[in-house]
């Protein structure tokens, strides 16, 4: 198992476009990847391979998320997703 905690800095959080980019990336890994919005509801997690699940977490700018991966490429998945979220998921972001 591997995990990471990250702050989302996209201007509108993980809305449709960044959520889609995140899900596309997660889906490339064999590992089961789940994501939790620690700021909103730490008890609820969603599959990182479901765009509806990720959007349903209502992650806004400045929210902290936790990504957990389980499976053979778990480390790789976490490293790659951490990099993707930190770089803004294809959107221009500014440090808060």
């Amino acid at each position, binding site marked *: 198992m591997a995990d990471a905690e990250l702050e989302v800095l996209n201007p*509108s959080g993980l*809305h*449709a*476009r960044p*959520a*889609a980019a995140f*899900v*596309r990336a997660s889906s490339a890994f064999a590992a089961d990847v789940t994501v939790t919005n620690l700021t909103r509801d730490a008890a609820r997690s*969603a*599959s990182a*391979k*479901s*765009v*509806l*699940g990720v*959007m*349903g977490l*209502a992650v*806004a700018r400045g929210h902290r998320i936790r990504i957990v991966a389980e499976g053979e490429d778990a480390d790789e998945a976490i490293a790659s997703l951490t990099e993707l979220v930190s770089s*803004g998921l294809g959107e*221009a*972001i*500014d440090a808060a």
Partner: protein
Amino acid sequence: MTSELRGTPAAPGMAVAAPWIYRAAAHAGVESMSLDEASAAAADEIGALGAQLRDAGREEEAEILDAQAMMAVDPELQAAAAELAANGASPAAAIIEAGDAVASQFEATGDEFLAARGADVRDVTARIARIMTGVPAPRLERRSVVVAADLPPSVTVELDRELLVAIALEGGSRTSHAAILSRSLGIPAVVGVSGVCDAAAAVSELGVDGDAGVIHLDPDAETSARLADAAAAAGDRVALDAGFATTTLATADGHRVACAANISEPAEAAAAFSAGADAIGLFRTEFAFAGRATAPDEATQAAAYAAVLRASAGREVIFRLADIGGDKPIAYLPLEPEANPFLGVRAIRLAERHPDLLPTQVRAILRASAEVGQRASIMAPMVADEEDLEFVQRLVADARAVVTDAPAPRVGIMVEIPSAVLLADRLAPHVEFMSIGTNDLTQYLLAADRSNAALAGRQDPLHPAVLRAIRRVVEAAAPSSCEVAVCGEMAGDPVGALVLVGLGVDELSMDPRAFGAVKRAAANRTLDELVVLAMAAQQMSTAAEVRTAVEAS
């Protein structure tokens, strides 16, 4: 007197036609396809509609459809539907119910944006159910006013544009997807019309006034005629212009002039190219600096600039270095109050007080250029003389010494200070292009402050003095390989554009909305006619005289 309903005007224009009421159908039919097959087919259909919108330059709506295509095959949605089906629901009812559950959950978050995505989910599951039960896509049979509670982008795009003459919705606001899409497609629309679905079901014709936000129910002959006349008059001009928007900017005898776009945000680039731009002739980069507490760093700027280069797919993009100061103050760049900011410390003159500003920006442009693998064009504003030009060339050389993997940029200057007009023969051999900013050049040449309304009558770039200045720049550039463009508002005014073509300008850069009108104007004249007209204009006394002469010719 006809009865009418009032709503919010969402997209301008008028139309009269029979109502066609769209309801997301209830699917009680028999499934002829599995849930998996139907979901995959729905994802394909939605993806194709998204691509169609992207080709038309409607990036924002295209992204909604991209996300919807992913929703159609979403594993959680599919699992929820499969479970409902296993418990006895028909597959079509199961996918609808699973979609409703997700949408309700989105709506329950209280997040306005997420709640709106709930409608997108319902739209997707309705499509899957429709495909699964073999019901054909909604189709217009004749010219229609489309009436609905709400109209998802996926349905709007799918309807026959020739038959869809107007939209009237119960829900929505001016900023809803439906409203934005109607405006960008030029379909008259009124939104927030309560009771319109029921009212439309009881009448045979609807008149839509998208300017006033009124729906006329079974309009009488007089109202119909009024709406039809207004639609025809506006439509004739707009349709004629629109027919030219994506053509080549050329005179009747085939003299070509580059048609470029002025943009102020990266997101405008794709739309500009779809609208018929040959290049981005002026990318105002102030957006990167405005509305922030601190200066944007190199990487942030580079990401924004790379997006525009990518959208250009190899066509030229001219980045104008930040023109800050004057009337455009920025919070984190404290500027001394000045009595005459337009004659003050603005644009490249800021370098002394803020030495990092321009080097950072030039490096960011080069990094974007290296990343995309496309040459950038860099344009310096407010260049007065050779000393200013040397400063700019040093700036570019220093940045290239740091960012070594970028293709060599094209370097050019704005010509807006009268001294640059007088020195154009000295500047032209050292730059690859000069772009004349006619707004500032006019105010400087005629000593008439742009921000002073009392002098508005003295702001006309058709003034013979301005025309002579432009001609002087064209002649000074001719012996070098330096191109001459005009990127002021004059280039987007059909009368101004005709004179500029006659003066021998190589490129006109304007708001993309002006492409159609400018191209149509040019296509009706020969180059010889315009050269003669431009020569005569330089001998006239006033701007008004020039305008009258061009319009009468």
